[in-house]
């Protein structure tokens, strides 16, 4: 009997601890969200008012980020989106063939690549490639007191490091998405050309007929949102790095996992709201 009471007491105690942990995590999550929001506002503030205060966000720094995030990722984005285009048209033709409607593959690929796949692939790729690099860079700077050194010189780290990353992301990711759109459609065109004997010019003609400006818009809006997510998650994790080289590694992993998760969830939410008119 006593043992039973002890056991139930134990269970109550454990579930109390469990609930407490959930509460703590929730509070920590809210706190981090607040921190990220403040960071975003600060970045925007520096971009808008830096010039007036003689502490501009340097254009050279922004272009350095664009080169790092965008130009250097061109090849890999092209290859991946080409592959996705080919893959989509294989699946599309296979499915549509059952209804004898394989010509519709052009519309299917055009819309799904521009609305969904190009921004998503680019977002995930940039998060893995640049998001982690940004966290590691800022994290090691934090570790070695370089951020403090910037501060005592009078250089605000948000202006000097975070704002160029944010602006660079917001330029690079949408541009990469446009490249991804093009390459995805080209991939599909190549496969469809050989599979159902559709000449390239006809394919492109049909693609233009199938695409509406809204399809491209949707992709670019998402790409901009992903850009903000990657930049903020990367930078904030860098600024909050714990002690030691281990801390940098942990933050880098966390940054990638968190930004990819946020990207996928944000993608779902935006897809729903951007298409709410067509759903009902």
């Amino acid at each position, binding site marked *: 009997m006593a043992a039973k009471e002890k056991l139930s007491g134990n269970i109550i105690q454990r579930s109390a601890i469990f609930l407490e942990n959930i509460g703590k995590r929730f509070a920590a999550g809210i706190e981090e969200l607040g921190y990220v929001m403040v960071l975003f506002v600060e970045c925007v503030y520096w971009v808008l008012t830096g010039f007036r*205060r003689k*502490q501009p966000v340097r254009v050279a720094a922004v272009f350095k980020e664009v080169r790092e995030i965008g130009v250097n990722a061109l090849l890999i984005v092209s290859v991946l989106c080409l592959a996705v285009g080919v893959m989509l048209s294989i699946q599309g033709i296979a499915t549509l063939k059952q209804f004898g409607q394989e010509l519709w593959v052009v519309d299917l690929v055009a819309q799904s690549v521009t609305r969904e796949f190009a921004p998503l692939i680019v977002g995930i790729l940039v998060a893995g490639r640049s998001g982690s690099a940004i966290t590691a860079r800022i994290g*090691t*700077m934090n570790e*070695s*007191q*370089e951020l*403090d*050194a*910037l*501060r*005592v*010189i*009078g*250089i*605000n780290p948000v202006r000097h490091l975070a704002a160029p990353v944010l602006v660079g992301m917001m330029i690079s990711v949408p541009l990469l998405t446009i490249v991804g759109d093009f390459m995805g459609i080209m991939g599909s065109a190549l496969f469809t050309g050989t599979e159902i004997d559709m000449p390239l010019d006809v394919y492109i003609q049909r693609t233009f007929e199938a695409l509406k400006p809204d399809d491209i818009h949707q992709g670019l809006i998402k790409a901009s949102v992903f850009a903000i997510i990657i930049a903020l998650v990367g930078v904030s994790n860098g600024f909050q790095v714990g002690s030691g080289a281990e801390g940098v590694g942990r933050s880098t992993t966390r940054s990638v996992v968190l930004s990819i998760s946020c990207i996928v969830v944000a993608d779902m939410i935006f897809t729903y709201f951007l298409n709410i008119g067509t759903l009902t």
Partner: protein
Amino acid sequence: MSSRGSHTGPAVSVKNLVTHYGKKQILNNVSLDIVPEEIMVIMGGSGSGKSTLMRYILGLNPPTSGTIEILGRDITTLSEIEMYDLRKDMGVSFQSGALLRSLTVGENVCMPLKEHTKLDENTMRIMARMKLEVVNLANFEDLMPSELSGGMIKRAALARAIVMDPKLLFFDEPSAGLDPVVAAELDDLILNMRADMGMTIVVVTHELESAFKIADRITILDQGEILMTGTVDEVKQSTNKRIQDLLNRRPRQEEIDPEAYLRRLLGEKDDDPDAFGY
């Protein structure tokens, strides 16, 4: 350059400074005046709060309570723009040097000039070279920080700290991690700079020898409190037991509180800041 006006009174004046790290109190009611053109050494063992005190004087963290005046201006109430101006008069050399690894030594030294002045590139480079000469690092401007030795990194950091000819120079652990000869060279460098440029210099260190060599006055911190502030001789002659322990490298003989000890063993949290080595 509004902050470059003449100022009488202490270069740095800390009054009743209390700081916390999380819930833990680190500095307890610290008050300290640093006179212009003196070399003030802040000493103490690991975890005494000496580096923390410097961080707060530099305005890197906001204090819980108390005031910190630098060149007559209370940095706890300054706006960001005023603080930005004041930074022109403050140079800092961090313990690890904290050179930006993505830039060359020369570019590192130029950073404050780029930020605060509108000089053209060539003038900035010449000024950086002049300061690198002062710290005996001529011809090293094109190297990356990773190519320098520990002593050279500290000297390069010093060149960056003095490139704006600040009135106040802060130096965190100049001799930590250096061999005795290089450490002695840095001490001489600090003395020379004061003689040549008339700077007020604040050095944070735990090296006794170095402190006695360069200090005009020494402040001794222990467990977040100032034990004493005085000249080298006054410190040496102090009868305070904890100061003598520090000077004679005697291990601290902490009185053991059996109850607190038991509580620690049982894993009960107590609020005793000493338990964490701060």
